[in-house]
């Protein structure tokens, strides 16, 4: 097994120490940080996402794999300064105003990072102005809006409407998700996409790019 495969496997297993050890060995062997990320960490998280989508693993396995991936990214990030790293997309992500739930949003952030996206997480209880400010500052291709409470679904609609009012709606594609959200509702409020679970979001982004 090559060292990239080792990093990939350690990531899938959520073995943080082994992931870091193998990354160190890969760097010593002259492997480029960008390649380690793509062939080891992102490749590992891709497998995790597929297994999650098929019901083979549950959220804890995804979280523990993501923790290993994040540790690896932290180790590699200082080595990436000044280098161009392929990014799938920049995504601003938040839970709508009135809703303090963050598990679903955090899982989406994990899977997007694991797919090679740059994620700007604006947190929970996010009013439209916070989304708009982040869009203006980070110029993402995508915005992800999450809600768990049925009561906050109208706020999801209002948030998208606020993007129109602010004149930024056409500059981003809007993805929505969360327990009460359906494709039908996403269509009704004028979202560009809907994902049924965290692992589907990266696929949706690839299909909409």
């Amino acid at each position, binding site marked *: 097994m090559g060292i990239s495969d080792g990093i990939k496997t350690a990531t899938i297993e959520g073995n943080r120490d082994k992931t870091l050890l193998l990354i160190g060995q890969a760097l010593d062997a002259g492997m480029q940080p960008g390649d380690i990320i793509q062939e080891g960490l992102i490749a590992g998280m891709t497998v995790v996402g597929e297994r999650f989508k098929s*019901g083979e693993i549950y959220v804890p396995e995804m979280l*523990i794999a993501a*923790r290993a991936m994040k540790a690896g990214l932290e180790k590699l990030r200082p080595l990436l300064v000044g280098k161009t790293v392929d990014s799938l997309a920049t995504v601003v992500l938040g839970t709508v105003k009135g809703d303090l*739930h963050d598990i679903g949003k955090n899982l989406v952030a994990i899977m997007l990072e694991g797919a090679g996206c740059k994620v700007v997480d604006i947190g929970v209880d996010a009013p439209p102005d916070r989304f708009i400010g982040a869009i203006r500052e980070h110029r993402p291709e995508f915005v992800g809006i999450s809600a768990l409470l049925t009561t906050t679904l109208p706020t999801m609609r209002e948030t998208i409407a606020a993007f129109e009012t602010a004149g930024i709606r056409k500059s981003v594609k809007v993805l929505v998700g969360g*327990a009460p959200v359906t494709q039908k509702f996403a269509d009704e409020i004028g979202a560009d996409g809907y994902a049924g679970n965290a692992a589907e979001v990266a696929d949706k982004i690839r299909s909409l790019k």
Partner: protein
Amino acid sequence: MPEQMTSRERVLTALKREIPDRVPWVENYVHTGLINQILGRTIRPIPGTRLGTEIQEKLCLDNISYDFRPPIYADTEKSGDLEQIKRPRLKTWEDLEKLKKWLPDPLDDGFYANAEELLKQKGDFAALASLRLGVSNVYNSMGYEEFVFALYDRPEFVTAAFEVFGDWCARVIERVNEMDFDFAWTSEDIAFQNGPMVTLEQYEKYIFPHMKKMAKKIRFPFVYHSDGDYNALLPYILQYNPAGIANLEPPVMDIFKLKETVGSRVCLVGNIDLHYTLTRGSAEETRAEVREKLERVGKGGGYMIASANGLVSYCIPENVRVMNETILAYGPYR
């Protein structure tokens, strides 16, 4: 056709998976905001009441409910009937010691005074004690992600936290066992819509022994509740010997399939959709869903109709009225 029953008889008959006079309607809670809207007046429930006797003027609900759940060790934010966690506070062993002192005294008679007041009003309704067994309070107090990492890194902390909340719950259960309740409802969410919150290995090793020990303490027939898709955990949950399982959140819990697979072992409770039907659907959609579940799941007994969680303040009152009418029309066993 069975003779007309009281609400209590109806519920207890269904929990035994026998055929009552009609399918009972039970809810673990009904938000006061919704009750006020349906009644057209403001009620002042006894503190701790999750469902009193007022709304039964308008709805054929068969139970009342009182809240004995331990508080969550976290900063929370309340808006109307909804309370959300802002900042979990259980991180360290020191926090665990603070938690023990922070919990209300379960041996204090005053802790049960409001419940006794509510029970004086119960009449023929089935009185439900809303309990917990100590698991969900732990992950809610720790924060879910922290809880998961702790299961991998320091499981002894998690099991110690189960014990702290569990001891508290056990003392409450001992006292509630002596009160005039008819059945219990153990709310222990353990699943998301895409499956269990923990791996099956973690469930078997850390949660199953705790829950089994705790469930044995309950002297009433009890309904086990979790949100989400807990199909994979049913083999464990059924070993707790619940009389019923709830609230069978659609679409991930397929109640028609459950009727076939476990309907002969346990009463099925709930499954009327809250994500759409009761909160955003039409009266006609509500009628169709309620009627289908009454007819298909109620067949042969062993079903108590209920929402997929509780009647929340953002249900459309008209849809709740339609649910009521449909239960009265199609719920009786003929």
